[in-house]
C-alpha cells in the first residue's frame, strides 16, 4: 500500500474504519450483512473503529510536526525548529522603560528596594516594578527602570499612562512614564518557521540575503554566543543593496515598529561579526514606521458584547500588522503595500459570525517603501450586532 502525504496528515474517520473492518470480515466469509445495529458484532466493530480513528488523530500530529508548513501547534513548531535548525523561539519580553520618573514633593527622601515599588496603568490595570534599588530624593525627582509584571505586549503603555503608585505608600510622590513602555510577545510560529529557514543562508561565507536576515533576527548562535540580545526582539529584517554603490542595508523592525538605537547597534555588531563578507559593507538601519489607521464597520451575528468583538478585531489587526514584512507585501513587479483586502480578511476572521465588513480607512492600499514598516495606527470601530 502506498501512502501520500495528504493521506498521512489527515485522521481517518470512524466510519471509514467501520467500512474497512466490515470488508475484512466479509472476506473471511462472515455474515456481515446480517449484523444489525446494536448487535454485539456491530458494537465491537464500532468500538474498535472509534479507537482506531482516535489513534489516527494522535499520530497525524507528529507526522505534521516534521514539516514547517504543516505544524499544528506551538509545541510542535518549537520541536521542529529546534530539531531541524537548532533555533529557539524568541520568548516574550516584559514591557519596560528606563526613564520612569518619580517626583517627590516632600522634604523626606524615600529609599525603595528593588522590586518593592509597584506602579500601575490605571486604565489597563497592568502593574510594573522598579528593577533596582532606588532613593527618591527629597524635593526632587528620579528616573529609573521599571518592567511589567506580565511579559508580552499586553502590558505596553503609551507615554504618560503609568501614573498610579500602588505600593509602597509614599506621601507626596507622583509617578509617570515620559516614554512608551514596550515589550514583546513570544515569536509567532510563522515567524519562527521563516527565521529557521533563513538560517540556511548563514551556512555560507558568501553573504546571501538570508544570512543577513537570519543574523539580524536571531539573538544567539548555536554555540550560545549572544548576537543581538536586543531589549526588544527584532522580528523582521529586509536586506537590500544599493545598485549605485553596492552597499548593503539591513532594515530591521520589532513587532511593534522601529527598534531602539542601542538595539540597532547590537544588530550592526552581529552583522559585522557573522554575516558580512570581506570587502562588503552592510549597515543595520531601523525601518521607518508607517502608521496605518483603520476605520471599519463590521456586522456580526454574535452573543458577545460589542467591546469583546472590538477587542478580538484589535488583537487580530495588531498581530497581522506585526507580521507584515518590512517593505510591505510585494506582488512583483509592484512595490510593497498593505492591502485593504487583507485587512478585510483579518477583520472578517477575527470573530465567528462576521457577515460583512466595510473599511473606510485606509481608503486605498497603503504603499510601503523598502525602508518602511507598517505599524497599526488608531482603530475606529463600528460594530453592528445582528
Amino acid at each position, binding site marked *: 500500500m502506498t501512502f501520500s502525504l495528504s493521506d498521512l496528515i489527515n485522521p481517518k474517520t470512524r466510519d471509514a474504519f467501520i467500512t474497512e473492518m466490515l470488508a475484512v470480515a466479509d472476506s473471511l466469509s*462472515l455474515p456481515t450483512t446480517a449484523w444489525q445495529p446494536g448487535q454485539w458484532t456491530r458494537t465491537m466493530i464500532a468500538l*474498535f473503529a472509534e479507537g482506531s480513528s482516535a489513534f489516527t488523530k494522535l499520530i497525524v500530529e507528529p507526522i505534521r510536526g516534521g514539516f514547517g508548513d504543516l505544524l499544528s501547534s506551538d509545541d510542535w513548531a518549537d520541536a521542529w525548529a529546534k530539531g531541524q535548525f537548532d533555533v529557539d523561539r524568541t520568548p516574550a519580553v516584559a514591557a519596560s522603560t528606563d526613564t520612569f520618573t518619580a517626583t517627590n514633593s516632600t522634604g523626606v527622601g524615600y529609599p525603595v528596594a528593588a522590586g518593592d515599588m509597584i506602579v500601575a496603568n490605571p486604565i489597563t490595570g497592568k502593574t510594573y516594578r522598579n528593577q533596582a534599588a532606588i532613593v527618591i530624593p527629597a524635593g526632587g525627582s528620579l528616573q529609573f527602570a521599571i518592567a511589567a509584571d506580565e511579559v508580552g505586549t499586553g502590558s505596553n503603555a503609551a507615554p504618560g499612562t503609568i501614573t498610579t503608585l500602588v505600593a509602597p505608600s509614599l506621601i507626596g510622590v507622583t509617578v509617570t512614564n515620559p516614554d512608551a513602555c514596550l515589550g514583546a510577545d513570544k515569536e509567532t510560529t510563522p515567524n519562527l518557521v521563516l527565521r529557521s*529557514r533563513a538560517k540556511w543562508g548563514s551556512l555560507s561565507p558568501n553573504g546571501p540575503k538570508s544570512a543577513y536576515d537570519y543574523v539580524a533576527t536571531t539573538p544567539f548562535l548555536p554555540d550560545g554566543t549572544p548576537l543581538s540580545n536586543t531589549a526588544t526582539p527584532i522580528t523582521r529584517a529586509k536586506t537590500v543593496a544599493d545598485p549605485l554603490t553596492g552597499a548593503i542595508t539591513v532594515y530591521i523592525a520589532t513587532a511593534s515598529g522601529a527598534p531602539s538605537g542601542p538595539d540597532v547597534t547590537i544588530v550592526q555588531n552581529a552583522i559585522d561579526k557573522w554575516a558580512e563578507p570581506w570587502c562588503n559593507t552592510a549597515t543595520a538601519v531601523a525601518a521607518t514606521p508607517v502608521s496605518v489607521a483603520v476605520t471599519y464597520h463590521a456586522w456580526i451575528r454574535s452573543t458577545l458584547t460589542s467591546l469583546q468583538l472590538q477587542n478580538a478585531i484589535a488583537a487580530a489587526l495588531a498581530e497581522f500588522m506585526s507580521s507584515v514584512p518590512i517593505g510591505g507585501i510585494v506582488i512583483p513587479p509592484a512595490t510593497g503595500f498593505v492591502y485593504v483586502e487583507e485587512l478585510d480578511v483579518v477583520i472578517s476572521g477575527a470573530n465567528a459570525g462576521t457577515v460583512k465588513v466595510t473599511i473606510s480607512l485606509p481608503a486605498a492600499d497603503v504603499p510601503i517603501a523598502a525602508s518602511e514598516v507598517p505599524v497599526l495606527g488608531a482603530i475606529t470601530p463600528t460594530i453592528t450586532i445582528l
Partner: protein
Amino acid sequence: MGIRDYIAALSPPWLEPVGEDGEPSVGGGILYAATTNLDAVAQWLTEGIKARFPDTAPPDALGYIGNDRQIDRGPAEGAPGYAVRLRRAIDTWRNAGGARTILSQLAAYFTNIGTPPMRLVSDSSVWHVYNWVTGITTKTVVSPANWIWDGFTGTRWWRGWVIVDTTAGPFTRHLWGSVPLWGGSGGLWGVDEPPGGAKVSDLVRIIKKWKPANVDVHHLVLTFNSTLFESTDTAPPNPNGNYDNPANRDPGATYIPVGT
C-alpha cells in the same frame, strides 16, 4: 510478523479467524479485522516518519521538504532527482552566493525542460560557464575586459549579468507587434514562455535567492542567437560601453532587469 498475526498467535482457538471446525469465527473475524486496522495504523505511522526524509518521502511530501530546505523545484523536475537535491541541501547552502551554486540551481530548474547554455559575467569580465554534460562550472578571468556594459564598468564591480542562451528553447522570441500584443494576457516584454513550463519570473526569483546580497544582477539576458555573448568573444561583439542605452543593445536578446 504483523500485529494481526501476533494477536492471532496469542489468541485461544475460538478467537482465531477460522475455528477448529474450519468455519469462520465471528469473534475471531472481528478481532482479525480490528488488528488488521492496527497494522494499517502502524504502517501509517512508519510512513509518516519516513515522509520527513527525501529518499523515503512520498512524492507530495517533497514540496514541503523543499520549502523547509529552501530548494526550489523545477517545473518538470522528477521526484527522484529532486530528492537527491534536497538531500544535498546543506552542501548547496554552504556555497549560497557563489557563482557555481547560482548556475547549478538554474540548471536544476531546467531539468527535463532543456539545456540552455548558461553563463555569468561580472562587471570585471569574470566569466562562469556551466557545462551541461559534466555539471561543472568553469571560471575564466578575461583580460583585457570583454564585457563593457557602460561607463561605470570597472568601477561598479558589484554588478553581474546572467546569460541564458535560449536559442533552442525553452523561451522564444516575442517580436514587437506579434500576438499577444503588449497588454494582452500572458505576455512578457520580448519573450514568450512555454505553457506550463519554465517562467522568467522563476529564474529571477532563483537568481535573487542565491546571489550575494550586495550583487546587483544588472540584467538577466535571454539570448535568441547562440553566437551572442560568449566568454571567448571580444568587446564588441560583446557590450562595448554603450549598453546603458537600450537602443544600442544587440536585438538578438531580451534584457530583463533583476536588481539587488
